[in-house]
């Protein structure tokens, strides 16, 4: 059976090369687009593990009082006794405060964990600025040794006026082992 040699034009090769390039450019351009979208709708930003850098430019708003509740939790299999020293405090937006969490490893071996903050209402996350926090990095806990962990923060006075209660909850997770763990579900 005779096969006719197929000739492919130069234009075809150019198109073929450009198409994936354009596609990837488009896909990567979507990232800032989605970021903007999430920013407007507040879809992300329920958590923030980053340190507030720069100057506290927020005005102190003496006419406002906000109640902050502090909560703590740990995940199963992470033997950490973990709680805030104060569970509730009234603050004035723009002022700096410090609160302390205490954690104690109840097991016999050293454990490493990562705290993940979470806010209710979620919109508060953006305006809760942390200057110091144990959630910025992994924390190592020696056996049976209590550890004090301060959080230094202020609440931006740009926070929506109708928010009067904020809850901040830290959840301590076990940092995944380097060696493969047991099969899930068993």
């Amino acid at each position, binding site marked *: 059976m005779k096969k006719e040699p197929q000739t492919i034009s130069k234009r075809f090769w150019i198109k073929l090369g450009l198409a994936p390039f354009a596609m990837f450019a488009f896909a990567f351009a979507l990232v800032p687009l989605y970021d903007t979208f999430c920013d407007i709708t507040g879809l992300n930003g329920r958590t923030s593990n980053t340190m507030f850098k720069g100057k506290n430019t927020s005005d102190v708003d003496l006419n406002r009082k906000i109640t902050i509740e502090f909560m703590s939790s740990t995940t199963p299999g992470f033997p950490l006794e973990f709680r805030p020293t104060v569970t509730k405090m009234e603050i004035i937006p723009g002022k700096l405060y410090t609160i302390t969490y205490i954690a104690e490893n109840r097991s016999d071996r050293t454990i490493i964990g990562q705290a993940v903050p979470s806010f209710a209402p979620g919109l508060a996350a953006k305006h809760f600025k942390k200057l110091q926090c144990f959630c910025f990095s992994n924390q190592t806990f020696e056996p049976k040794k209590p550890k004090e962990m301060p959080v230094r923060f202020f609440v931006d006075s740009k926070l929506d006026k109708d928010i009067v209660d904020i809850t901040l909850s830290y959840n301590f997770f076990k940092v995944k082992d380097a060696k493969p763990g*047991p099969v899930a*579900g068993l």
Partner: protein
Amino acid sequence: MLGIRISPFLSAKNTSLFNIVNSINNKYLNIIKYFLIPLLLSPQFLFAEYAINLPKGVTSVSRNIYGLHMTIFWVCVAIAILVFGVMIWSMIFHRKSRGAVASNFHESTAVELVWTLVPLAILIAIAFPATRVLIDLENTEKADMTVKITGYQWKWQYDYMDEGISFFSNLAQSSKDAIDNADNRNKLDHYLKEVDKRLVLPVGKRIRFLMTSNDVIHSWWVRDLGVKQDANPGFINDAWAKIDKPGVYRGQCAELCGKDHGFMPIVVEALPEADYQTWVGKQKAAQKAREAASGKQWSKQDLMAQGQKIYSSTCASCHGVTGQGIPGVFPAMVGSKIATGDLKKHINIVLNGKSGTAMQAFGKQLGDADLAAVITYERNAFGNNTGDVVQPSTIKSAR
């Protein structure tokens, strides 16, 4: 295949409809009752009678949602009558068999424009009340009290943040006993909607709920309160309610959370302020008493008896009543390496759970005495005859 039950189908007559199936006479009556009357009579009357509509509920939010629901419902009904009316008209009067001759029109920009813009206007009209209710939902006024709700596979934990009260709420034993037994089921008023410990709340206070989860995603839902909110592991969500009327309001978990998703009810008991305070006092006293119990020495017999109780309420849903577990999903107790091996490891896994699995940290859920009992039970029941006896004091020091 896994999971086929042996108990015979249709083992019992436990629904009113079962009787209908048996008596033909009755059946026709009920078809009229369930299908024709709802179509003919005023909806509100019947909605109340047969629970085929949302309840109005006991909070402003649930009432607003109800109002919104009825508004959209009637808008839909109106559009349906119009559209289906035209359609049925042409199906009756423009039939070929009646000699109808087809006309040939197939375009009209004006008509197209009308039926794009009119629905758009209707939608905008609906959007206004919807937005109002939505904003009210996210209302962030000052709360009088906060309850933290944590979802577990398959129970709820309630923490009264201001009172320091904390407890777990499981499916009531009476309902568990009725799952396989129709006679028990018929005796119950609230099969699968009753818990061992209710969430007690005061009436007339603005209550803030914080939802989170210990394992998978759950969803806390009480219809009469107009509250349904996902509980995500590692994150907190909030919702609020201000209950108008004392009473008992029932709900259940609304997000598939594994095997016993259908067996995780919520019961809220709303009390007048004074009664609520009495309840709070009682809870605090009981908590003290529990702490005192951990100093006591227990006999093996007592431990085994108490252990069996705790095992069946807390452990049996995964590890099985006879300790067989579910192969590949939940490990068996029978001959288990942990339950027959090193005691310290056994205590540790019960206290702290195992990460990455459904095994929870029961150290937070049970007292020293109960933990000692259940561990003793696990090490001596199901043929795991280790002979170990664990005392509450051992647990206390292991914490």
